[in-house]
């Protein structure tokens, strides 16, 4: 209780101090001479946010970039960390896996989500059907990892299976399989978990976009004799292009940063590690902050173009409107 009381007091003091600082800034801005008031106002109101940005984002980014060129003891070692990353078999597998993830997850999630959205569009019980697919979105990555780990669980032949998939395999007369152990397909089995989660997201956004395609256009195409595939290909797809890009890029960014699923299910063992997981392992467990920082930097560089592209597409769309 004493502890909680102390914390509450600290929070109270912090809030009061914050209010006081803001009040002081406002007062000073208001008192500024008329000639420079605009400038002072801009600086006065942007400075707190800018300072927080610099302390919380820019400084760590610069620090991490510097760390990426140092060894475990913090002495600069040039590009050694990057050489390690692109030559050590273990690290190369990590990069390879990240590429597989980034190609497959957005593609599969979007294709499944789109197909589902099209097929259940205006179907009976559409809401329930949507909710079913969307539900995995509500589960945390760690939760999903734990669930699927149980689904993939393995017991040797002749022993009662505890994992659903292996129980099914045995029931139809197949040998049980070590889903999470056999490389390289184990990466695919991890990817399935991510697709399972992200399909719901893609489906909801794309379904809304499909409903936004003007009925007149579809009707006109049908009157012109277009078959359902041609309608879909030439009318629906162009109509939802913006949403497709948003879905693809959002999922791609989420996939590049994937960590929880891998860590929960295999902890990066059995050749399933990805960049984000390896970054954590190197920095916080292997005592190699330099290597961790180098991986973080590479991850940042991989995400950056996608974010830029995403922002540009959004801006173009706003201009069209």
């Amino acid at each position, binding site marked *: 209780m*004493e502890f909680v009381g102390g914390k509450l007091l600290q929070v109270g003091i912090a809030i009061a101090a914050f209010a006081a600082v803001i009040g002081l800034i406002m007062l000073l801005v208001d008192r500024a001479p008329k000639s420079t008031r605009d400038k002072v106002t801009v600086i006065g109101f942007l400075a707190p946010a800018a300072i927080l940005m610099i302390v919380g984002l820019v400084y760590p980014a610069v620090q991490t970039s510097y760390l990426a060129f140092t060894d475990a003891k913090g002495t600069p070692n040039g590009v050694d960390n990057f050489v390690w990353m692109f030559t050590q078999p273990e690290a190369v597998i990590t990069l390879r896996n990240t590429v597989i993830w980034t190609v497959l997850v957005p593609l599969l999630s979007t294709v499944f989500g789109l197909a589902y959205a099209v097929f259940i569009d205006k179907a009976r019980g559409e809401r329930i059907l949507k909710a079913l697919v969307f539900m995995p979105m509500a589960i945390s990555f760690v939760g999903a990892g734990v669930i699927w780990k149980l689904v993939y669980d393995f*017991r040797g*032949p002749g*022993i009662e299976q505890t994992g659903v998939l292996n129980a099914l395999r045995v029931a139809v007369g197949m040998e049980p399989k070590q889903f*999470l*152990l056999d490389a390289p397909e184990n990466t695919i089995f991890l990817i399935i978990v991510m697709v399972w989660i992200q399909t719901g997201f893609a489906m909801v956004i794309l379904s809304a976009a499909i409903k936004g395609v003007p009925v007149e256009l579809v009707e006109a195409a049908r009157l012109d004799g277009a078959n359902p595939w041609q309608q879909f290909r030439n009318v629906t797809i162009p109509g939802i292009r913006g949403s497709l890009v948003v879905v693809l890029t959002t999922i791609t960014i989420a996939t590049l940063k994937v960590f929880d699923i891998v*860590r929960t299910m295999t902890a990066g063992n*059995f050749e399933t590690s990805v960049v984000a997981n390896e970054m954590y392992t190197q920095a916080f*467990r292997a*005592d190699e902050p330099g290597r961790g920082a180098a991986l973080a930097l590479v991850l940042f560089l991989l995400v950056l173009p996608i974010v830029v592209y995403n922002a540009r597409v959004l801006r173009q769309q706003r201009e069209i409107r």
Partner: protein
Amino acid sequence: MKSPKFLIPAAAVGVLALTVTACSPETGGGGGGEAADCSAYSDYGKHEGKTVSVYSTIVDIEATNLETAWADFEECTGITVKYEGSKEFETQIGVRAQAGNPPDVAIFPQPGLLAAQASNLKPAPKAVSDLVDENWSADWKKYGTVNGTFYAAPMLANVKGFVWYAPKTFEEKGWEVPKTFDEMMTLTKTMADDGAMKPWCAGFESGEATGWPGTDWIEDVVLREAGPEVYDQWVAHQIPFNDPRIVSAMDKTGEILLNPDYVNGGFGDVRSILTTGFAQAGQPVLDGQCAMHHQANFQAANWPEGTVVAPDGDVWAFMTPPIDESKGKAITGGGEMVGAYKDTPEVQAFLQYMASADFANNRVKLGGVVSANKGLDPANAQSELDKLSVELLQDPQTVFRFDGSDLMPAAVGSNSFWKGIVAWINGTPSKQVADSIEGSWPKS
């Protein structure tokens, strides 16, 4: 509508009263209320009104037991011990020492951390050093010594390398507990030929730490086969990790763990070791699907509730037997070290008490732990397993060594060694695994 308004302050007072009761330090002592017999504490002097702050990794019930174990000491000496336990100890202790805000006394969970802090610590007072000479074996004192200076007395201990089995199964089948490693291998073969169950079950899955139970196996075999000197050199990297003697120990372990006829009872083939959680891995021993399971003394807590752990109970354990008896009866394990950042009289008195047989007896009496303190009366051990552990630790012939992976640099001991075990169970040859672990050893 008047009563609720009236009730709020009343309730507040009530809550406050409860809080105060809960927070007030327990002064009753271990016995539960009656005044403590202070004759045993006269050596520590009187330090009325003085406070000693103690910081460690120990939390929850273990922390309460620890505080109970020194309650009488507090009452008789007048010292108030301010205890703080935190799971973040390992990172926080360095931060606090650097910031000039260390505790008076820190209980280090492993020697590596103690060594890292040695420059900030005060050497142990002579009285403590003498007590450790008297009560502990030289092996133990060595772990509290950094560069020739003795800093910290050992506190409690845990014992690794037990082999768990079901006494009833052994009796039915006419199997005998092996006295040597060779006997254990012969027994393993007998069990496999018998066909009723696989001789061994194992599980190395432990999230990001997957592989660690395998490091315990290897350490046990290195210590027993190559002897304590080689073990020390191996841990300190005076010999390379891929030294032939280490590879030989891996191969010897592999005769069990990599043999599909010998593992993995109740779970499947050799590789299923990697996907079996370490806490569940012993279960087949109870279910009659496997005969033996190698795990530390804390396995006692992993059995389902109601399992009797005793020589005539549901499960019992024997120590992994010696390979070369001339190298002594070796055991691996762990324990805490009590080091001080101050050398005031009250801190010294506290250190002295912590190194004494009185503390060991008071704490062990409360159950759940053992100590390697020779002054500990084995009768105070609260369970059959604790009794066995105390006997092993106090046996003058016992060679005790700390869990090696805890002593190696983090890049090896909590990364590449674990990963190496995973690769090894997954089919990579011993030599290749040892080579790659050697390659990951930080250059200094």
